[in-house]
């Protein structure tokens, strides 16, 4: 009979944040890498648009409807602006606006969701039922209606989309926060006499962040597609500001002449959506603890 020896398992060395990021990146699948590279390229385009674009955003450089040429790689649009330059500037506008909108919707929806989970009772009932009512109406139709009522401006667009989107964020953040609120450490903080701010930001939010970040990626895609759709319908981002949705709208008739013009902005939209989804999938897989069976 052998006497037991304690397990010889090295105490896990603490990883710094940088190290664990590097480690995660090393194990990232190809799709995630593809997504990250594409998002990075889009970000560079958006940030350095004036430096990268060969011409100005609304600068008329030649005749309308030119085919690709060494001067205008992707040709020109209906009033003779360079399509490539507008595509690059479009990244800045479309992505920037979508990002601001998503951030705003998470700020509103996320904080209301956590608050409802924490307070329960009448407040929760009140907000939840209002949100249910909003969720019953299709976003695009509701946005169109609201834009018609308050007038089409960039600020209005951002606020309306953010508010509509925050209903979905509310539902998620309330649900995940409910799971955390019942934990003993939250009760322990309440017994300590902690204020609302501490409980929300120190106890609850760090524990619900992974699903919210994942959702952020997905909602960003939806917002971005909705903005493109609204622009296509002519109520989104207004000319002469370059934006992919309206670029598709302006050149859509060219498709019947076999010209690829509407496909460039459409491809830009599709590629970004796919890329964001790849990254989100990877993140979700990593944080949800789903593992491939060994």
């Amino acid at each position: 009979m052998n006497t037991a020896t304690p397990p010889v398992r090295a105490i896990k060395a603490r990883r710094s944040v940088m190290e664990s990021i590097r480690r995660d990146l090393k194990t990232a699948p190809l799709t995630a890498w593809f997504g990250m590279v594409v998002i990075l390229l889009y970000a560079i385009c958006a940030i350095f648009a004036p430096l990268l674009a060969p011409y100005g955003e609304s600068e008329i450089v030649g005749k309308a409807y030119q085919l690709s040429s060494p001067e205008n790689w992707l040709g020109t649009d209906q009033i003779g602006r360079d399509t490539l330059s507008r595509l690059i500037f479009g990244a800045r506008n479309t992505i920037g606006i979508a990002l601001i909108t998503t951030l705003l919707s998470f700020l509103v929806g996320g904080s209301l969701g956590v608050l409802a989970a924490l307070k329960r009772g009448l407040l929760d009932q009140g907000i939840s039922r209002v949100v249910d009512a909003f969720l019953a109406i299709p976003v695009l139709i509701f946005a169109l209606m609201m834009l018609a009522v308050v007038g089409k401006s960039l600020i209005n667009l951002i606020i309306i989309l953010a508010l509509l989107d925050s209903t979905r964020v509310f539902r998620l953040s309330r649900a995940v926060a409910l799971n955390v609120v019942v934990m003993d450490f939250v009760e322990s903080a309440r017994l300590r006499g902690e204020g609302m701010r501490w409980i929300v930001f120190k106890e609850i939010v760090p524990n619900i962040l992974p699903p919210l970040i994942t959702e952020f990626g997905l909602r960003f895609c939806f917002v971005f597609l909705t903005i493109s759709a609204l622009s296509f319908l002519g109520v989104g981002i207004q000319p002469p500001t370059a934006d992919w949705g309206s670029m598709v709208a302006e050149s859509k008739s060219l498709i019947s002449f076999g010209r690829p013009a509407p496909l460039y902005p459409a491809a830009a939209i599709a590629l970004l959506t796919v890329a964001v989804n790849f990254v989100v999938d990877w993140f979700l897989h990593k944080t949800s603890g789903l593992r491939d069976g060994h």
Partner: protein
Amino acid sequence: MVTDKKRVKGETLLDIRGLKIDGYSDDVWNPIVKGIDLTLKRGEVLGLIGESGAGKSTLGLAAMGFARPGCRISGGSIVFDGMDLIAASEEQRRALWGSRIAYVAQSAAASFNPAHHIIDQTVETAVAHNIMTREKAEADARDLYKRLQLPNPNTIGDRFPHQVSGGQLQRAMTAMAMSCRPDLIIFDEPTTALDVTTQVEVLAAMRDIVEQFNTAAIYITHDLAVVAQMAHRIMVLRYGNLVEEATTRAMLKAPTQEYTRSLWAVRKLQKPESISDDIALRIHNVDASYSGSLKVLDNVTVQVPRGRTVAVVGESGSGKSTLARAITGLLPPSRGEIYFNGKPLPRALHERDKDTLRRIQMIYQSADTALNPRQKVRDIIGRPLEFYLGLQGAARDRRVVELLESIELNESYIDRLPGEMSGGQKQRISIARALAAEPEIIICDEVTSALDQIVQEEILSLLMRLQKKTNVSYLFITHDIATVRAISDEIVVMHQGKVVQQGPKSKVLSPPFPAYTELLLSSVPEMDPDWLTGLLAKRSKKVKAATA
């Protein structure tokens, strides 16, 4: 048919040789089971005991030829009734599972599907393996319910899992495991989640049915007294190695290994009782209820002297935890008064000032949920220091280290997250967090029931030492009588929201007992293989006498 095979006692059913199992974590394979031999004869019950991490559950599952996700069988052989389970295909093994080898899990509530009737789940295996027709299986299930002494055996199967008690559900799961008359059943801590009073019934029913059908069983538990009632032979495991193996009687009489002896150390731990009249907390005629309906506390009066430990015992639903909620102000009492240092305590939490809150601290049963998984030890212990005492920066960290040392951990733990510590260490951190506030009263809500015996003993002695040092009072809520014996000065017995008995330990634990206290005390398993048999005989005699 499998079940028709003659069961000959003495024939080897399961033979495990040199089994090695690895678990995957932190990118490497760590050995969990390190070369264990195990043989089991037909009709024999083998007890596997050890603390958590000893590899007993992994070994139990391996006896089915199953390795949990993240585990792999890396060596050795498992032969079940002449069939090599490691070499067998997935399909061959699946044909065995449920029909010839069955598994009873710890938490019946988590193992039943809440959306289906109990009987549908009981007969599912037998029907799926085409062993019986549905009608026959259902009739058989009702017969099993009866043998397991479930109330209303003919109709209980039509209920949903949430409509029966935990003990009944655990028995229903045993019926499920029995439905195909397996050759081998693996019980994985089947009574750990139950009250002592319920545990007795479940143990008796399980032992009885295993005997009736001459089924071989592996009984996994960390409670030596329980395994003594069930098993013919006991194997003690530690860190994946076999420490000691002997027949139950031989092992209880003369354990050869130091480690085996230490396993029942907690039962020997005993603090001399000391009485004090200096009352720190007085709960006076308190009623409390959830949403105004049923009274969960009914006219409860309890006194907690300064620097002493008052143990509150009772089974689940007796109102012990509600008492804690009433004291902390989470559930304001609907009647009665709570006096703290002679002054009435504001009823609701938000009416109390910071200093009052500081003086009453709480430690929870499960350190897993009581510590924020995203906070480091530095912040967990540091926050009360900062919040109540205004300590900042280096002064705060210095005090955190002092507190870590007082709970017998060291500086190196300061940057750890809860997930990087063991269960006992996490519970120590919870204790340090409560101590950081320099409280006068600490409410301990089942603080040791989620821990192994040895760790329990360590935590209890730590609490006692800390009490001596700081003169803090404990209100110790528990259902475990061994714990009560170990640390209390006074005992309060609760049943259905009422205080049944209250007084110094020596008085409450010696006869004459009120009926409920006697039931509670007599249900605590003892280190005697004949205890359960004796107890059942005594109880049935009493019932007969009462009916005669």
